[in-house]
């Protein structure tokens, strides 16, 4: 059972300056599954991925990746662990001065001593998987948003990682490229035996591909379960989020003094 869990977050607390982001949060990611983390924007979902990747250090709590506590690893151990994980950034974060081919080849050239002919074959295979083999000589600036994200995905799977983290993969995509990415996440997860963590607030897409979903709000997990279980979750906050209602436990109005009082002030 233990080895089934790839990432185990225990009692995670993190704050940025004076502003607490997470308080004593627990979360587990099963190996080989697509785990989604949903929540309103601005609650630090990307921060969570950076915590898992060891780019930020938590105030307290454990982040176990394959049983090893990421924040406590030494620099070289952390770099070893990072070779087993990869992250797809919201913008794609392709290196702008390299072609698509060189972008995908970058991690291979950095971390392996493979001959160039073999690297070429691996890169073409990865690009074929995302449908961009024909775009290998283009520069990132020549790609559309959806293509850039797919190219970045090819780069993310270049080293055959255990874990791939998607930061808002659906944000700002047209329906077609959204569909393509939804399919790719699911297919890559199954075909390559990956473990996927998807951070997003696009409810429909996430519910359609996730095996397990965490809803994060108010600095901690407010609901979890399979998409089925979540739809029947009694929490009004979870329901408001899933249905996209404007008003509810998350208020429509920013914190303010009573409306009547403020209006009366003007007439005084």
């Amino acid at each position: 059972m233990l080895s089934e869990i790839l990432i185990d977050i225990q009692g995670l607390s993190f704050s940025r300056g004076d502003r607490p982001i997470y308080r004593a949060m627990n979360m587990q990611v099963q190996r080989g599954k697509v785990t989604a983390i949903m929540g309103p924007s601005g609650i630090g979902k990307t921060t969570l991925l950076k915590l898992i990747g060891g780019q930020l250090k938590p105030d307290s709590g454990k982040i176990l990746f394959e049983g090893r506590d990421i924040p406590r690893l030494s620099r070289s151990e952390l770099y070893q662990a990072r070779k087993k994980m990869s992250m797809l950034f919201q913008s794609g974060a392709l290196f702008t001065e390299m072609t698509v081919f060189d972008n995908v080849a970058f991690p291979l050239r950095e971390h392996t001593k493979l001959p160039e002919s073999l690297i070429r074959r691996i890169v073409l295979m990865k690009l074929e998987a995302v449908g961009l083999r024909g775009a290998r000589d283009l520069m990132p600036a020549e790609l559309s948003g959806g293509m850039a994200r797919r190219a970045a995905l090819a780069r993310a799977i270049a080293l055959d990682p255990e874990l791939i983290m998607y930061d808002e993969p659906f944000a700002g995509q047209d329906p077609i490229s959204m569909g393509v990415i939804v399919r790719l996440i699911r297919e890559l997860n199954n075909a390559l035996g990956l473990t996927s963590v998807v951070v997003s607030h696009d409810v429909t897409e996430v519910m359609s591909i996730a095996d397990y979903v965490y809803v994060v709000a108010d600095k901690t997990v407010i609901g979890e379960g399979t998409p089925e279980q979540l739809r029947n979750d009694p929490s009004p906050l979870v329901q408001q989020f899933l249905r996209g209602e404007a008003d509810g436990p998350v208020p429509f109005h920013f914190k303010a003094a009573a409306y009547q009082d403020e209006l009366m002030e003007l007439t005084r």
Partner: protein
Amino acid sequence: MIADRLQRIGHSTISTVAGFGRAGLMLFGALLGKPDFRKGFPLLVKQLYVIGVLSLLIILVSGLFIGMVLALQGYNVLVKFGAEGMLGPLVSLSLLRELGPVVTALLFAGRAGSALTAEIGLMKATEQLSSMEMMAVDPLRRIIAPRFWAGVICMPLLALIFNAVGILGGHLVGVEWLGVDAGSYWSAMQANVDLYQDVMNGVIKSLVFALVVIWIALHKGYDAVPTSEGISRATTETVVTASLAVLGFDFILTAVMFGG
């Protein structure tokens, strides 16, 4: 009121010192450790081209004009004393000791420094640095280190080129146009310029300026607020801070080298 002001002074002092600390850590992280020549050398060559070769044009043109202006102004004064034969030393010593290293550094800060800050700031804003880190590649070693070394290698060479072109420009105006004797222009220069005292001190100056300018440029880019506004502010700060730092260090170095 006073407490308020004190607090503000304290705050800005602390953030300045913290900035120095971050800049030091950045350089430390970039330069420490075993260099990997197989991967590092092509990166260095590329940066030598971007930072050095692409700065050549502005250095050549500025050097030529500064040399020509020096000769023109110097001639007008020297001719009153009948000392126009000393035009060669005047032009060459001004260039070698002061104008060469300083103006090169100022131009370098404007041309290469601002470009470096903007480039690295943009890499940060578009998450390229983060993604490199997630790919287990250290952006300090991969991005910062080659640019640093390229800058340190290029600047003294650019300053020497600036000097050479300036002296030719002085020759153009002084000898070809104003009629100073070519033999006295060159021989007086040869007699009065000392390899160590003048040429080497100029090279040392421009090495120091190179360290200062490139460090400031890289740090401002690496530390930039990753938004378009933050990058534009960082670019401005690079040019202003680096220029002031160059002038300040120039005074100190001049005092040490030629003061007593």
